[in-house]
């Protein structure tokens, strides 16, 4: 079967980009021919995909597969195509997180949500990377749905993990309003009053320059020298940061899956997260999920994890088990099952 596989942006270090490439390889292993298309292609991946407007020159596929994660002209293009369509949904951040910061991004996300509603009516099958995302597709009227997690390679477990004092806390993710890094910085200000020298590492590029500036100003005001913005890092550096972290803290207000939570668990880092969107589903009882993210509560959780060796040990055991359930083999198996059923239907 010839599958034309679409994504808005194909990037080597972005969760959807990594997933797209891994799924493409899996479909090839299953004996299907694939061609990747994107609206924006990272220079490192130029040879791997073509511009989506070139599709007409490549021939007629048996199936269209779309990685839906934002508003994009790719979706409008697909809505005009007659071939069967499969939607692989990674969630869209609600626009109101971006509206005050980058109104154009908010507008793009709003457009994405409208596109999603049309795509859901048009697509025969959907694959969502969490039950949370699947419920959104079901609410849009989709019936043939599968849940299969994001495909990615979790980092290896460091040879030995020791808790250091002062501690290092880590969050990995774009600097974006829905990820609420300001709450991490506020929490850090309180933590450093009790544990001077504690530091917060924020890995990830800025999706909004205005938001980044505000975060840096806040950090300079309430927590000078306590927060390190390290930007985008390669896989080796990322593994190193997971190796150095004493806890992974995620206070995001919206996540469709949150790959870094699983990466942290795989690396043996205890996870503390705020109960929002798909985060509790991804954590799955293997980390501390808080209903309240006021600084005192989060600091209490961090101190408990740092001081209670037994809890840390239990979180590490549970986390690794959880990470295994999302590991490459398990995730590939779920995708294989989903796509064998879908492609069987389409054929």
């Amino acid at each position, binding site marked *: 079967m010839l599958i034309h596989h679409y994504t808005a942006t194909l990037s080597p270090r972005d969760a959807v980009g990594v997933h797209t490439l891994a799924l493409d390889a899996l479909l090839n292993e299953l004996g299907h021919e694939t061609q990747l298309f994107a609206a924006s292609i990272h220079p490192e991946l130029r040879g791997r995909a073509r511009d989506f407007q070139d599709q007409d020159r490549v021939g007629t596929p048996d199936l269209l597969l779309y990685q839906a994660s934002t508003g994009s002209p790719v979706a409008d293009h697909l809505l005009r195509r007659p071939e069967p369509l499969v939607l692989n949904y990674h969630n869209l951040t609600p626009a109101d997180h971006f*509206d*005050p*910061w980058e109104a154009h991004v908010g507008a793009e996300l709003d457009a994405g949500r409208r596109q999603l509603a049309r795509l859901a009516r048009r697509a025969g099958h959907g694959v969502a990377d969490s039950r949370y995302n699947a*419920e959104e597709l079901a609410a849009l009227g989709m019936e043939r749905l599968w849940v299969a997690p994001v495909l990615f390679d979790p980092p290896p477990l460091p040879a030995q993990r020791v808790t250091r004092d002062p501690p290092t806390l880590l969050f990995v993710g774009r600097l974006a*309003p829905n990820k609420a890094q*300001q709450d991490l910085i*506020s929490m850090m*200000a*309180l933590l450093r009053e009790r544990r001077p020298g504690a530091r917060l590492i924020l890995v990830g590029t800025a999706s909004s320059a*205005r938001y980044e500036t*505000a975060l840096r*100003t*806040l950090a300079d*005001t*309430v927590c000078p020298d306590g927060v390190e913005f390290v930007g985008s890092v390669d896989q080796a550096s990322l593994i190193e940061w997971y190796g150095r972290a004493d806890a992974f803290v995620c206070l995001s207000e919206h996540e469709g899956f949150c790959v870094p939570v699983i990466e942290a668990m795989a690396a043996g880092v205890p996870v503390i997260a705020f109960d929002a969107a798909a985060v509790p589903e991804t954590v799955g*009882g*293997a*980390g*501390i*999920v*808080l*209903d*309240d993210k*006021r*600084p*005192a*509560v989060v600091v*209490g*959780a961090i101190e*408990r994890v740092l001081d*209670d060796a*037994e*809890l840390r040990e*239990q*979180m590490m*055991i*549970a986390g690794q*088990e959880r990470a295994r359930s999302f590991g490459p083999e398990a995730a590939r198996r779920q995708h294989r099952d989903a796509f064998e059923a879908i492609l069987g239907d389409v054929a």
Partner: protein
Amino acid sequence: MTDPSNLDAAAYIALARAEIEADAERLRRQDPELARRERELERAWVDVAPPGAAGEQRELLLDRAERLSMIDVDAPIGSRPGVRHVKGAIRKGTYWYLRYVTDQMNALTNVLVRLLRRLDDRLTEVEGTFGLGDADALIDPPAQPSRAVSQAIATVVNEGPAVVLSCGEGSVVAALQDRGLSVVGVDRDPLRILEGVKSGLDLRVGDPRRHLGDLAEHSIRTLVLVGFVEDLAPAAAWNLVMEARTAVSAGGVVVVVASDPAEREPVERDLRQGRGLAPVTWAHLLERAGAETQQLEVNDPRYRTVVSGRFG
């Protein structure tokens, strides 16, 4: 701290979470400085975030509005040689006019913000007068339903998933769990649920109304409403019944455990925020919403009648 020897990892982590939230709550109650510090940190973010990006807290929004209400005009009025005098005069005239307009705008917005602040003060005063503020701190929360109430509920409820809102220490949750139902309890106070969590019940900290609003349509079979229903005004009670009807599936049951306001002690009658509704009134509302109701007499000093409504 908990002894982990008898617990598996997930249960141990869940218990640790409950203890963390309870500790933070306890600390916040004991140390007002902590709440002040949290507020300071929140304000620091409000100062650098654009309007609308840092929540909707009244006082913070007013502070923000006050700062934004002042427009500062700093127009360049110097000029290069040559036609210096003419250009300078034009620029000074423009500057004078801009200053004149912005002064008026500043005065207007400043008055509006002052009025908002006055309104805010009045609202705070009204809340204080009518006990909408901290009056609850003067009396204990409603007593937990006794074993008799839990048993009565268990006789009309036989299907899960079930949710108990304002579950307290979890006596109703335990009774339903003993009947083999899948049941979750939600309560605002982490200190109250702690004992229940320790005994293995699935109790979570959260706002009961918000939890109900977050439930998917027709996603549960049984909904038990306790505690927070004690002081609802009629409109809020009706909204609650409608939300409850949406949450339960066809054939699902909504149970209301509420005391009769007419039978309350004088101190509670005087100090409880709202009057609340009598069980018979709850039954009336459930019937209006389309439920078949049943009223069970119970041997409990506070909750003498438990009302259940089954939606078709």
